[in-house]
């Protein structure tokens, strides 16, 4: 227990260090999530809209899960060397699959009666996508972004071995920060993951259309692990 007290004391004594590393951590994570969003969401939504490519979209999640984050960073160290690019590439590769799969499943799974009705009202395919499919798909789509983001925040800690700046710098640098620092860093990373999870849960609730809230509430607890 004393160790944890020391660790908290270390955090309290070094607010500047933790603030700086937390900002670095969030910047790195934010960059990876942003790149992954641009790649995964349009592709997943489009595939879901045309109901094609289920094989790719579903298996993306399976393959993505099979890629150990540390292994990707390590391969990147050998091929791309130390630095931001290596880390970013590894984190984007990890962040894309959950987003892609969820975006696909979300749009593909929209109630076809609703889509038919919208079409019957004379909506163009684009209007159907924007006014019907996307709003109904939003909760599940967002769940994918949430899973990816929490995953990326966890991975950013490891990125520090390859020159990505993050709270991992503190955890992995016992010679400089001592054992209290290592544990302090670990506490900070865990706290950051919980904070992200909490914020995303709130946003997810906010973006869920009111009519869907009760019906889907049960499915949206926790990360989307069953492949949805």
């Amino acid at each position: 227990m004393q160790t944890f007290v020391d660790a908290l004391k270390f955090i309290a004594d070094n607010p500047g260090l933790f603030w700086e590393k937390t900002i670095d951590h969030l910047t790195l994570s934010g960059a990876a999530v942003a790149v992954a969003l641009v790649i995964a969401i349009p592709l997943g939504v489009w595939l879901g809209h045309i109901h094609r490519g289920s094989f790719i979209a579903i298996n993306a999640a399976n393959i993505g899960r099979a890629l150990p984050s540390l292994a990707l960073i390590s391969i990147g160290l050998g091929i791309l060397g130390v630095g931001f690019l290596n880390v970013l590439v590894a984190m984007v590769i990890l962040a894309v699959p959950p987003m892609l799969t969820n975006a696909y499943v979300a749009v593909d799974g929209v109630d076809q009666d609703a889509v038919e009705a919208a079409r019957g009202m004379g909506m163009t395919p684009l209007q159907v996508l924007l006014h019907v499919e996307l709003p109904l798909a939003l909760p599940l789509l967002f769940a994918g972004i949430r899973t990816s983001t929490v995953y990326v925040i966890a991975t950013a800690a490891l990125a520090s071995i390859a020159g990505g700046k993050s709270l991992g710098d503190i955890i992995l640098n016992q010679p400089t920060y001592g054992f209290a620092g290592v544990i302090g860093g670990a506490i900070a990373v865990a706290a950051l993951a919980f904070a992200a999870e909490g914020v995303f849960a709130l946003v997810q609730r906010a973006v869920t259309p009111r009519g869907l809230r009760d019906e889907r509430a049960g499915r949206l607890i926790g990360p989307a692990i069953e492949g949805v």
Partner: protein
Amino acid sequence: MNGGDLSAQGPVIPKFQEGSECIRENGQFCWGWFQSNFDSVFVPRIVEHIELTVIAVGIGLVIALVAALFAYRYGWFDTPFTIFSGFLYTIPSLALFQLLVPITGLSWTSAEIALVSYTLLILFRNILTGLRDVPDEVKEAARGMGLTSGQMLTRVELPLAMPAIMAGIRIATVTTISLTTVAAFIGAGGLGQPIFNALQGGFKTQFVASGVLAVLLALVADGALVILQRVLTPWARARVRTA
């Protein structure tokens, strides 16, 4: 430290190796070095990696199965256990491994506790969902045939839940293989160890080889479990349940 020992400052030439050109220039992947060091550097790590994974998934399965059966009978248990295991699942691996060090030391035990705690949410959710998805008509029929609740569980409910359970085991195994690489940071061995060892000297071949082997291990395990899933649940082949 293992055969991949590198002197901390010097050139990145592994010991006992008359440096080939590739090694002297620290090429991206020196096939010759990999071949001659595979048995000594990587094989023991692969074995450790598999051991850590199998034990973690095994213990996790026992805990999750008990919890899921309990939650299946007593519905109120579902939410608290989901929140508890979800809480564990959210803690980043590097942090959880380190946080256990003051409690259980730089040890194999710390690694296993962390690895087991990551399997719980996945296995619990999948087992419980599988059990709950057993159609009511089937249960009625079984009850009508005079099966006791114990017989119902072992002969009807668990077999019908098998595809979902196997899907859970598959996800849990692959996730654990991935997280086990991180366990090397607290000295638990596995394929993360050569990565960790190579950090000091920056020997590229060792980075690439360890990383690729870890990815291959995960993919092979995933494939093997898909095959096992099909063998165990031949009736489910028609409605494939991709996890």
